């Protein structure tokens, strides 16, 4: 290799290294740091009697919204309220007796199964128990 070629490589490498040294901290800055979150395994979703049959309610499970449904025949069901399609928050539709997502008209049945519209997967279910006058929801 002649001297010219050597210097070209040396200079090019130096510039590339400088570029990387500038870029790396900037890219890392743009990515938000992970924030530890308390993992929640059980919450009080509602009081007994708060929900009528064929209605639903959104409650907070950790940092995410979840939905508690009282089916027309009086059973409690709970699911994550985050639509599996594109992240909207679903709601209970008494009219259709289904869980419904307004964003792109996604439908889920009362077992959380995606039955029509774009959602690709069922809503994850939580288990529900009643203790005293509290309705407790926990990770299944």
């Amino acid at each position, binding site marked *: 290799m002649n001297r010219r070629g050597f210097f070209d490589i040396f200079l090019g490498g130096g510039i590339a290294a400088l570029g990387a040294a500038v870029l790396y901290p900037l890219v890392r800055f743009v*990515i938000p740091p992970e924030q530890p979150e308390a993992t929640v395994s059980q919450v009080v979703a509602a009081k007994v009697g708060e929900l009528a049959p064929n209605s639903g309610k*959104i409650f907070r499970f950790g940092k995410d919204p979840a939905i508690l449904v009282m089916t027309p025949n009086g059973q409690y069901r709970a699911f994550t309220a985050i639509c599996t399609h594109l*992240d*909207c928050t*679903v709601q209970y539709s008494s009219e259709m007796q289904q869980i419904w*997502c*307004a*964003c792109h*008209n996604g439908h889920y049945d009362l077992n959380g199964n995606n039955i029509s519209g774009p959602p*690709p997967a069922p809503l994850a279910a939580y288990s529900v128990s009643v203790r005293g006058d509290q309705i407790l929801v926990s990770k299944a």
Partner: protein
Amino acid sequence: MSEPATHSGISQWLDERLGWHAIKELALHKRVPMHKHSIWYYLGGMTLFCFLVQIVTGIFLLLYYRPTAEAAFESVEFIMTDVKFGWLIRSIHSWSANLMIFFAFVHMFSVFFLRAYRRPRELTWVSGAFLLFLSLGFGFSGYLLPWNQLAYFATKVGTDILGQIPLIGEWLLTVARGGEDVTGATLTRFFGVHVAVLPMISTFFLLGHLALVQKQGMSVPIGEEYKKTRQMPFIPNFALRDLVGWTLALGILVLLASLFPWELGEKADPLASAPAGIRPEWFFCFMFQTLKYIPGKVWFINGELLGIIAFGLGGAALVLVPFLDRRAAREERHKWLPVIGWLVILYIIVFTVLAYVV
């Protein structure tokens, strides 16, 4: 000496330092051909006018707007109700944003059908296409800023689509949202993009776009000969006409803002269900409506991903139009390119309407 001494003195002084004559020559040499399609030459200027209105009203809004989840909604409410003429400034900013995107689309299609992108104006077209994307970016980032319910969910959906991209999707999503979810961190990010990043990049592309137009002059549709068409100097004749149009546009903006002040809606609540009738701004509606019709899974590919790929290819084709239409470079009319153009317009209109009525 024909010119008064002082005048030539100043112009010579400037010329020595700035190359003033070259600038004057660039400004004065452009002539605008007048023919039955000349009306379309006003649309770029209209888009430009809206852009300027955005900058001015945007700076005013900055005096009171606060970019946090706790204060954003209230600060916009404050602008709308307490600040003198706050409703006017905000409504003009919103209306002009929508008109700017409308004009940018119409401008693009008119340039497309006149084939003004052909040699030597390929780069004018490419810079224009990027300006259109940047305008959509302005629309998307600005929509979230009032931190209301509609914008909150529109942004959740819009950013979640990013997450569907293979390999880098997860990463893109986190960077766009400033975390896993749409939160105050997202708002602050969008704010920075809306008021600093996009204006800077757009100004850069805009100056390039305008410099090219100025340098190359206006194109003439295929079939019309430049030398034979009637022409008028851009400065001052056509520029003055532009100015008349701008004055009219300002009047229309004020009228729209007064008759239909921009709504604020309800404050975003991360624990509420997405309200019925949710949809993004109209210029995203055709894409949004398309997503509704794509099933969750097509064969083994995720439906959204398919949509993203299709729109990505569409965007790429848009940028590359001057290089795809090889005939125009030879001053020949392509047979089916205008047909594609009309089909695209039809698709955009039909799907936009569908998003509003279904």
